[in-house]
């Protein structure tokens, strides 16, 4: 498994755990598309992702991480810095 796929899988697992859904359903989700992923849930979710990967997203980026794909990209970007 490539590094990118691993990141994607871990992001999806974390999102599934926090939102209480199956990992298969995660890719179709986004902010506002799940009752637990509202503006308050968003910050909790981001904190869980940061904990999982041991990183910190720049403050200005947090509002833009509105779906799994954006989160995966951001994790890759922060990891490579």
């Amino acid at each position, binding site marked *: 498994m490539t590094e990118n796929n691993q990141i994607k899988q871990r992001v999806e697992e974390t999102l599934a755990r926090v939102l209480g859904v199956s990992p298969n359903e995660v890719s179709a989700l986004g902010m506002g598309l799940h009752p637990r992923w*509202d*503006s*308050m849930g*968003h*910050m*909790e979710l*981001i*904190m869980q992702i940061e904990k999982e990967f041991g990183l910190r997203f*720049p*403050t*200005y*980026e*947090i*509002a833009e991480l509105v779906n799994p794909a954006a989160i995966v990209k951001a994790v890759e970007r922060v990891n490579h810095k």
Partner: protein
Amino acid sequence: MIVCILAGALVGLLPVLRSTAGLLLVSILSAVGIYRFAFIGYVLVNLSAYIFITGLAWLSMRSAFVQRNRWRASCAAMLALLLVFLAGRYYQLETRGVAVKGLNLFFFSLNMWAFLRLITLLWEFGSGRIERPSLRSFMIWVGLPFTLIGPILRYSQFEKQLPLISTQADEPARYRQSLRRFLVGFVQLSVGMLLTGFQFALVESGNGLPRWEKLVIGFSVAPWSFYLLWAGYFNFMESLAPFWGITLPPSFNRPFGRRNLSEFWANWNMTATSVFRDYFFYNRWGLQKANLYVNTLMVFLMVGLWHGLNGYWILFGLMHGIGFCAYLWYSRNRSRLTLWRQNLIDSQFRYTGPIATYLYVCSCWFLPPTILKLIR
């Protein structure tokens, strides 16, 4: 409002104005019409922000100046802007004119909307979301008549629409939607003005209003008149902007009757609240790990200060912050309750939630003067 209607009609009727030069001309004329003697102050404030961004963009081109520094410099500029804004409010600089050849000119003008608009610009530029705007598009953006006194159209949202202005303005579907919005706005504004008139008549009818009358005003007439006036005004702006080929994001979505404070704020003055949410709630405030209660209080304190630097608005913000924290605490701890209790609370909230939220929101407008009196 008349300036905005004229600006919309002028560009709608004269296709020759649907170019950046044409829009720039109408934007400047609109800003002059709206700001009048404070126009110079408005230009000076915006020009300062533009010069700062230009300088930062020039520095960013040098390889040694990394993104992190651009962000830090922008944060410092946002803090400086906040201090200037608060100082302007505290010393009422906007009302201090200077007499020049018989004209009373104001060399400082930074109202709440101009402040928030510039904050979004500095944030977006600092984060790298946008590059330095051209002077022409920047001037159209800050002079856009439909956003001069709200709502907020972030530069990134405006920039995307700029190349489409000449083509989108002719789409009949946009005009049909505009007409519907215009009528909704007209009805809202009319009812809002009627209610405001009624409210003033009640207040002016005597010094010692009975308590029940005060309660009626505080919990029914005043909130609805305030909401309808602003919702109507913003609907007007949303209906006029398509004449320029511009789509404004929605501002109000039936905020009264929502089940909790979170839902209320998600539907109240949305373009402004989304800025506070994105910039102040999604933040760590220097902490190692974000604390949602601290973030909530910061957001509402800023919302209060944005409205005014006085006890009333600070208390207004704090009351909303405390209410929101209580709801946040419940949402985070809800899963600890047994399923039976969760269902019981949910079924109760389904009916009582909208009433309790409405009463709490009205209390935040109505009670601060009484609380301040008690404190003093």
